[in-house]
């Protein structure tokens, strides 16, 4: 009874959090800190948080497709083809394809992870400082050079994003860097206001001003599109599975996070389908990135549970919550705790099975939003963006930061500089810098050429760069 109650509460809460623009699992989990004391049974916290992670990952597709506002960092890639589909009256198809692909990959990778968890330790331990450094180079190269039409402007946007990401504390000297003496910036610029301001706000404004032809979808059309989305997921299963593999692998590597998984998967979908056009409503674009979504969430539990090393930003919060109730990840007591693993696996699977019909049913209501003039819910979305962005300190500086990010977003959009490249630069800047410092602190440069995995990744990076500049025809204009 207790189990069912916490499971259902987690499913409901996670789904709602997923629907809130740019909030995502991390924000939803942070809010749990305030009432974690009510979890007298620690395993119920495992059930609740697992349900939140699973369902928020599926829920966040709705915002991306229907409103062109990312539900979370990872779901931003879904916008590129999902929203154009919604604009031409195929919102239900896009959502169905998105949910189905995300669900199937969540199931596959969830089972692979939770049934064989201890066996992954060798992969995590085998991926050292050199491998991480070269893998980061490779993934950023793929996103910028293979996907973007304006790769040079993409590079500039990437550099700008990296610069913004470097604001804060210099990890080399522990001195403030690029903060202009502002104490508020000492801990760096936070992810959510950047997501909300740079990516979401300009889209919100465009949608407000846009006069879209409303396409009424009756129940028959919605049902037909829902079935079509499921068929699409099957027809383009290799795009989804490839995305799942990419997401699954990135989740295993600590500290990279979900957003890059989805964008990397999206760039590979484009690379593998050279003759197709993306960014204008291609369902394969939706399927490719959504494959990575839940797969990455599932595998990020591997380093978290086995080593006590968070596999993604939301896992930092999970670890803190679990520690609060006496479950410290990576410790022998947890690794020997079969009850913990049973609750993790069962709640993961139950959440998946509950959220699938709920999501399919919700499509019917979500697509109706496309029939409602955007002006009616503009303020609601704006309020939720502001709320999400001001959870850092809740003080005036949070609001000013959001406003500054919104101005940067509008400028980038107007000048056609890829905001996605900017965001990827921003998100990965700390990781790239720390990876560089770790590498140079422990190794010499020539050691990249004498070890198999780093060498292969360097070669792949070079190939991706040359291919992207000279041969790739399947580029899209990133937002």
């Amino acid at each position, binding site marked *: 009874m207790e189990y069912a109650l916490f499971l259902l509460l987690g499913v409901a809460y996670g789904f709602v959090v997923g629907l809130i623009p740019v909030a995502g699992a991390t924000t939803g989990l942070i809010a749990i800190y305030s*009432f974690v004391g009510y979890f007298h049974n620690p395993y119920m916290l495992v059930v609740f948080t697992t349900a939140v992670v699973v369902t928020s990952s599926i829920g966040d597709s709705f915002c991306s497709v229907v409103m062109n506002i990312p539900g979370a960092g990872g779901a931003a890639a879904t916008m590129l083809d999902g929203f154009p589909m919604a604009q031409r009256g195929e919102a239900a198809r896009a959502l169905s394809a998105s949910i189905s692909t995300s669900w199937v990959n969540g199931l596959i990778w969830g089972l692979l992870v939770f049934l064989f968890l201890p066996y992954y330790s060798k992969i995590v331990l085998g991926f050292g400082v050199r491998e991480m450094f070269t893998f980061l180079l490779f993934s950023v190269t793929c996103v910028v050079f293979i996907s973007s039409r304006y790769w040079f402007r993409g590079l500039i946007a990437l550099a700008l994003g990296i610069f913004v990401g470097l604001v804060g504390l210099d990890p080399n000297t522990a001195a403030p860097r690029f903060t202009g003496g502002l104490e508020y910036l*000492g801990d760096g610029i936070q992810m959510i206001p950047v997501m909300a301001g740079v990516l979401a706000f300009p889209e919100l404004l465009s949608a407000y001003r846009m006069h879209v032809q409303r396409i009424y979808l009756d129940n028959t059309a919605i049902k037909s599109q829902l079935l079509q989305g499921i068929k699409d997921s099957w027809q383009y299963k290799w795009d989804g599975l490839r995305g799942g593999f990419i997401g699954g692998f990135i989740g295993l590597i600590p500290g990279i996070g979900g957003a890059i998984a989805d964008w990397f998967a999206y760039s590979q979908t484009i690379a593998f389908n050279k003759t197709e056009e993306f960014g204008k409503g291609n369902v394969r674009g939706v399927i490719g990135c959504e494959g990575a979504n839940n797969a990455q969430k599932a595998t990020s539990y591997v380093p978290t549970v086995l*080593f006590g*090393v968070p596999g993604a930003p939301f896992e930092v919060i999970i670890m803190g919550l679990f520690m609060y109730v006496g479950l410290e990840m990576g410790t022998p007591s947890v690794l020997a705790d079969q009850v913990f693993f049973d609750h993790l696996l069962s709640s993961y699977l139950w959440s998946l099975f509950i959220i699938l019909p709920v999501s399919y049913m919700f499509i019917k209501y979500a697509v109706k939003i496309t029939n409602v003039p955007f002006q009616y819910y503009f303020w609601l979305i704006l309020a939720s963006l502001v709320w999400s962005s001001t959870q850092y300190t809740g003080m005036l500086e949070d609001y000013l930061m959001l406003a500054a990010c919104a101005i940067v977003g509008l400028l980038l959009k107007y000048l056609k500089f890829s905001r996605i490249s900017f965001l990827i630069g921003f998100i990965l800047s700390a990781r790239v810098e720390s990876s560089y410092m770790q590498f140079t602190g*422990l190794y010499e440069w020539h050691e990249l050429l004498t070890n198999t995995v780093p060498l292969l990744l360097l070669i792949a990076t070079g190939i991706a760069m040359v291919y992207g500049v000279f041969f790739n025809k399947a580029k899209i204009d990133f937002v």
Partner: protein
Amino acid sequence: MKKLLITLLASAGIMSAAQAEYTFIVPQKPGGGTSVWTAVVATQLEKFLGEKIVIRHLPGANDIPGFNKFHKELRFDDKTVMISHGGNGESYLVDSVDYDYYQYDPIAMMNLTIVSAHQTGFDPAVGEIKFAAGSGTDPDMMSQILMINGPGLTTARAKEIFANNYRYVKGMNSGDRRLAYQRGELNVTRESTAAYTKHYEGKDFSQVWYSHGVFNLKTGQVEADPNYPGKSFSEVFKAKWGVAPAGEFYDAYILLRNFRDVMQKALWVNKGNPNTDQLREAFRKMAADPEAMAAIYKDTGKYEWIIGKDMVTALDMLRGQIKPNTLRNLVDFLQATSKPAVFKENLIK
């Protein structure tokens, strides 16, 4: 139900922290070590305090801005309590900060220590040490340099060793550090006692090198760590070199180590706060309750609590250790490691 609703509203930011009974300020993000520690202690403390505690996170660089904000404005609220950690103690000595422990009433603190360990089979005296730099790791790095170079080490010589024979690997958080140590990319690591026990105890690849020892409130000296008998820094040093550690660099290390470890976790209110006695009494009751302490020790390791006026004594002892030359040597050395340390003359009594 009402209580749950209030908590939910608070989590949504609808109810301000000012309306709560007590607000504990944590100078870092949710999920950090001190954040979790505060949540664990607050849960137990509420029972003895009889009032609700709301935790407010004020994160920032080096966990300094939250403490500065407490100093500048929040401390004037009688229901606001600051939670500081060892990194704040280190920053107090060598960084530009606004906060000043001596302007507050101390409530309680946990007198903790840190353990250094190395890969089994690795001899730190022979091989080059590869150790991760991070928040609060400078005393560990200094003690390692002392341990492998013996008595009478000067600051100038320590700077040379740091520059030429030591790899202080930057850019690693605690998770990166643990994985790199397990992989063997790092050959020396450090953990709190509780974390070491949880992550490495019984693992073949790691062995405890030494514990930094525990500060004795009565003598003002660092003594043996009850969790690691015979493995305190001074004991291991003496066993290796035949004499007790001493010298200018050792004094600089001890100063930094004490400000980090003695105040590893501490609670403060403004001087003259009318609730000081109530808070201290609640801590005393909690410390006397075996069930509450068992719940706390599970996460922190078993270390002594210093409560109320005893904490004032401890602070005075720490302050007495700040000698001009010692502080100058410490700052001089840390600057050589790229840290923007500043010599704060006002700290010298």
